[in-house]
């Protein structure tokens, strides 16, 4: 009996040591990570764009945005020497203030951000989305209506809304616009610098990417006239899709 008691006692002590050791190790692992959030915010003239606000472009057309769903891919953050893949693909609704991507990052110094607008060609076509798990943004369900099975792969972004073309202040917004753009030639890459952050023990950092919706709709003195250019699904009106895509790609900025 003494032998059994002694053996059980030793066993319990070992279990306790293992529990304590594992707890410390987990804590140590957590302590090595910092949390970095990339936040995308659409703005018009410096103000956050909301679904219940109406904006007026340079053509005196009153605009309401209802959908800015966008794929971002190959999101890297780095420091000019090394870069770390932050996320392969994200599908974000930019309206509503919830367009964030958060990851735990190893300790380090970061000052560079780059991403692709859309889906890179190697993932865009000749891929059956049913092979992805449903939680993936590239899956049939996860793509949430952003996959063109029949045509050009994924819709890189959907920009939908309504407009009043009369310019009358209280007129209902009865005209619609829909820019659904996506095709390999429309994939765009952007890179930015921002104030250096140090991702260290249990700290969190936020990188804010602004999307200037006015610049998107107006370009560099190239306003999109919603009375004529209000609709593209890329094919059939590739020129407009390319134009909107270029405006969009140039509308991003990160406050240094």
């Amino acid at each position, binding site marked *: 009996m003494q032998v*059994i*008691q002694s053996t*059980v*006692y030793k066993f*319990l002590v070992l279990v306790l040591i293992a529990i304590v050791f594992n707890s410390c190790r987990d804590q140590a692992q957590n302590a090595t990570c910092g949390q970095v959030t990339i936040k995308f915010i659409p703005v018009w003239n410096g103000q956050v764009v909301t*679904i*219940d606000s109406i904006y007026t472009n340079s053509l005196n057309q009153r605009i309401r945005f*209802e959908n800015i769903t966008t794929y971002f891919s190959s999101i890297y953050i780095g420091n000019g020497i090394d870069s770390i893949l932050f996320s392969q693909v994200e599908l974000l609704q930019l309206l509503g203030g919830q367009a964030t991507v958060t990851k735990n990052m190893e300790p380090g110094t970061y000052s560079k951000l780059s991403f692709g607008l859309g889906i890179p060609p190697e993932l865009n076509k000749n891929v*059956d*989305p*049913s092979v*992805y*798990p*449903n939680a993936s943004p590239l*899956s*049939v*369900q996860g*793509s*949430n*209506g952003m*996959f*063109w*099975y*029949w*045509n050009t792969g994924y819709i890189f972004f959907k920009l*939908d809304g*309504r407009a009043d073309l009369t310019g009358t202040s209280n007129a*209902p*917004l*009865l*005209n*619609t*616009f*829909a820019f659904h753009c996506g095709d390999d030639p429309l994939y765009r890459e952007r890179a930015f610098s921002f104030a250096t952050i140090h991702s260290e023990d249990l700290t969190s950092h936020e990188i804010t990417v602004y999307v200037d919706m006015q610049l998107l709709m107006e370009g560099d003195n190239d306003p999109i006239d919603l009375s*004529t*250019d*209000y*609709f*593209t*699904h890329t*094919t*059939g*009106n590739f020129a*407009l899709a390319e134009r909107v895509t270029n405006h969009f790609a140039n509308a991003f900025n990160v406050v240094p």
Partner: protein
Amino acid sequence: MKSVCATFLFLGIVAFFVTCTHPHEEAPVQTPYPLVIPPFFPPMDIPATNPLTVEGVNLGRYLFWEKKLSGNNTMSCGTCHMPDHGFSDSARYSTGIFGDVGNRQAMPLINMGWSTTYFWDGRSVTLEQQVSEPITNPIEMAENWETALVELANNPIYPPLFYKAFGSTEVTKEGVVKAIASFMRTMISANSKFDKQRIGQYVFTPSEFNGYTLFLTEGGSPDQVPGGSFGADCFHCHGFGAMQFSDYLFHNNGLDASFTDLGRGAISGSIFDNGKFKTPTLRNIELTGPYMHDGRFTTLEQVIEHYNSGGVPSETIDPFMKFTTGGLQLSEQSKADLMAFLKCLTDTSFIHNPAFSDPHE
């Protein structure tokens, strides 16, 4: 420490004897249901809390057709979700046990395992949530759970079925809901002409192929719609990337200028969702009339004509509707071809599948 060791030893001995005293009372084994995902379909997400089992599906089939789940034992799920009509109601509005009439058409139950929301307004986000609602809805089956569970428990067929499905003879609401949801996940339609064409077992007729092409082509006149190609414009909302002919999103397809039924707007609380309803699948569309959320169209021809007209403008009408530019402007031949393609989505083996029939008969 001695007392701790003694306690451990005592518990071990007790556990040993408890395990060994009932060797003959083994819990029933639930058999994983051999769900076959059809070609080109995405995976089906099945909740970990409700794994698909042969026994659960079998129980669900009995419950789906069980009239004791209604207040006066006259209605089952299958009363309004009729197989011959693609498991939807042939009436514009379903009539409840007290003669009350709803205000929406019963949605067809087809490939529900892939849907991401349920009901026309998407108010349920799981099949389990969806299943429980009609049973207690006062204008539908108008049953209360306490009564239903007692009635089921008193029926000699159910306690053994619950035991096989869940390891207990106790009839519970959770068990009822899980079993019916499991059964509905097996209601898969994937044997239409369209499906056969996809795997090389059928060749579209010229008219069906023209309809298929129209389905996938931008609508409207190119003079009035950027990129317009006189197509039928169906694919935007009824795409078949997921093989379901629905984007599972919510759209206002231009039925009304103002809304007596707010649809999605009543659920989300956003005025920008007013008049929007879930895109229904087009699978078995030939069988699932009347059409639209309120069943206002009795024929598919009327549906095609609605889209051909461009619809009625409103504050939330979908950008895809061509109300300002003269509609789709389809020729009579194009309409006929589109109809021919839509009928390629009919799957008679689905509606006649004995696995979905009433087991009480």
